[in-house]
């Protein structure tokens, strides 16, 4: 009797020890769903490469809290319905601990209710301000909002005493959201919009709407969009002989834009993350070492950095630090720790999250840059 009792205790101990051992070896699972193909692929592609790079680095150094990190990723192709399916799979089948992703605002907005219901932290890489306003318990974001971009452009216009502005935007989600923010913020800065034109992002010629803008008394043109369309707009402005200051959004803050628009890009101004002008920052800037380190590592493996890959870096690092502070992967604790992120130096800026602000960036995170001689120049 005694003997079998001891045996039982022994076996039970072994059993639990075994479970514990398995637990310690169990990797931390970070899930992601990105637009690796489709129209937003040039955003999703560097994002995935960055996530893989950061996870590899962690694992090479022995993982996080002594546990390896496993990245589970799916390609949404920019399709919001697919995004929702994949997030359900990440939560139920893959049972990930935290989700970093949503390349586009559309993808992110589509999955937010599911994430809230399941109670798992989501750090979005997309731009729309609707993701964090109103604040949702489980949803965070690390990319600058379009409202910040609009505000930054208006500040610059005010400095140059330009008040009459023509707006031209594409038909994508990013364009429309940006347009809405510009229309909303303009009166606050005393700016009148004398034209509000649009085009389709797949168009190869935008001279028709620009001809209409040429006939107005605009003092500057704002184009809000990403991809090749803004480059064509910029070229068409030049072609039509419109000699006005041109502002683009942070959506084109990549070398690709300069390559595409060529000479026509000279003098174009846009709000950009510090990443594109990392070398020009003063050495006292606390962001500089972080930016240069990320840039160097990424460029060694994949070629030119983009700010979008930088967002993925910020997202996964914030998640990793939160898990480190929480000492485990308890979902509520991780969420609370993400919300307490303060003073984290990322590529997009310095994050100070609060229960009221699930992004934690201010306008300083943007630099107003001008394209000169095929490169970026800070103009503030």
């Amino acid at each position, binding site marked *: 009797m005694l003997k079998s009792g001891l045996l039982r205790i022994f076996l039970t101990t072994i059993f639990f020890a075994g479970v514990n051992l398995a637990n310690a070896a169990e990797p931390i699972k970070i899930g992601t769903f990105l637009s690796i*193909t489709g*129209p937003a*692929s*040039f955003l999703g*592609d560097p994002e995935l490469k960055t996530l893989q790079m950061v996870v590899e680095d962690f694992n090479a150094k022995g993982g996080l809290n002594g546990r390896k990190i496993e990245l589970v990723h799916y390609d949404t192709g920019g399709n919001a319905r697919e995004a929702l399916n994949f997030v359900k799979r990440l939560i139920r089948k893959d049972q990930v601990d935290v989700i970093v992703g949503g390349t586009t605002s559309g993808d992110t907005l589509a999955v937010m209710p599911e994430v809230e219901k399941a109670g798992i932290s989501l750090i979005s890489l997309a731009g729309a301000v609707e993701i964090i306003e109103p604040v949702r318990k489980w949803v965070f974001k690390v990319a600058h909002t379009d409202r910040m971009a609009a505000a930054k452009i208006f500040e610059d216009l005010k400095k140059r005493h330009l008040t009459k502005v023509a707006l031209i935007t594409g*038909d994508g989600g990013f364009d429309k959201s940006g347009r809405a923010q510009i229309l909303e913020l303009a009166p606050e800065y005393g700016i009148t919009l004398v034209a509000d*034109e*649009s*085009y*389709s992002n*797949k*168009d*190869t*010629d935008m*001279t*028709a*709407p620009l*001809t*209409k803008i040429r*006939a107005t008394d605009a003092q500057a043109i704002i184009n809000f969009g990403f*991809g*090749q369309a803004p*480059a*064509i707009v910029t*070229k068409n402005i*030049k*072609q*039509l*002989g419109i000699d006005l200051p041109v502002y683009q959004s942070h959506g084109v803050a990549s070398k*690709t834009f300069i*390559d*595409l628009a*060529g*000479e*026509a890009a000279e003098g174009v101004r846009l709000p950009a993350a510090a990443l594109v002008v990392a070398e020009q920052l003063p050495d006292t800037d606390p962001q500089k070492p972080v930016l240069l380190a990320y840039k160097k590592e990424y460029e060694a493996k994949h070629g030119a950095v983009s700010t979008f890959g930088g967002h993925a870096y910020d997202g996964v690092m914030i998640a990793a630090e939160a898990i480190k502070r929480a000492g485990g992967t308890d979902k509520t604790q991780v969420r609370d720790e993400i919300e307490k992120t303060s003073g984290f130096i990322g590529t997009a800026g310095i994050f100070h999250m609060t229960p009221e602000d699930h992004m934690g960036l201010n306008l300083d995170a943007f630099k107003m840059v001008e394209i000169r001689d095929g490169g970026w120049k800070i103009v503030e």
Partner: protein
Amino acid sequence: MPEQIFQFLVTGITVGAIYALVGLGFALIYNASDVVNFAQGEFVMLGAMTAIALLGAGLPLVLAAIAATLLTALVGLLLERCAIEPARGASVVTTIIITIGAAIFLRGVASLLWGKNSLPFPAFSGNEPIHLGGATLLPQSLWVLGGAVLLVSLTRAFLNRTLLGKALLACSFNPVAAQLVGINVKVMLRLAYGLSAGLGAIAGILAAPITFSSYEAGIMLGLKGFSAAIVGGIGNPMGAVAGGLLLGVLEALGAGLISSGYKDAIAFVFVLMVLFFEPTGLFGHKVAERV
């Protein structure tokens, strides 16, 4: 206002010329086999992307353009040999589905080879806009227009004047009879795909300085080129040009006078109207089905 309308017209003709060039490529394969080749847009993309890659590798512009055209023609040949020919005897619809598959495949290969960003191509003779009255256009647009005129005349002459061209047409009218009179239908089909791919590549290279190119540039260009071809009467090279110019001008006027948002809708409603009232297109051959 008249100045604006003039600019819209110039814009429309420029864009229309690109559609016309792309639409032209549909004619050859359709003429040889009654098949609409949905990989035509991908030939356009391949031409442009290959030229960009070769230029990047250090080849001079002219050589890069010629090599890209030949390479794309080779891809067209291979496509026929490896995907269309094994399905010989399949219905037209099946063959069309194969071309859709080929299009997706080519797009995938392009995205792996050249990445997903749009890439620029330098203009042939500078970017200094030409002023025409109150309107402006790029020198490259003249290249596109000139290219369209030249290629259309060549295609037309090829189909109507040369023995080879006539043999090609015979294959579509009646493949069995064509075979019986000694035309090698197989070779004719390969020729049609190769030439179409080459035509597409030239269109892509001429338009690339204006439109840029990316792995998925073929989708929209292919669709618009196809619309141009059916408006004008598919199979008729002149029709493709007229269809392309009409479509371009309508789009530009729609965008300028009504709203950019409705531009594509206006163009596609026009295509529907044409097909509704003139099912063979504006310049298509009237077909009388014999029972």
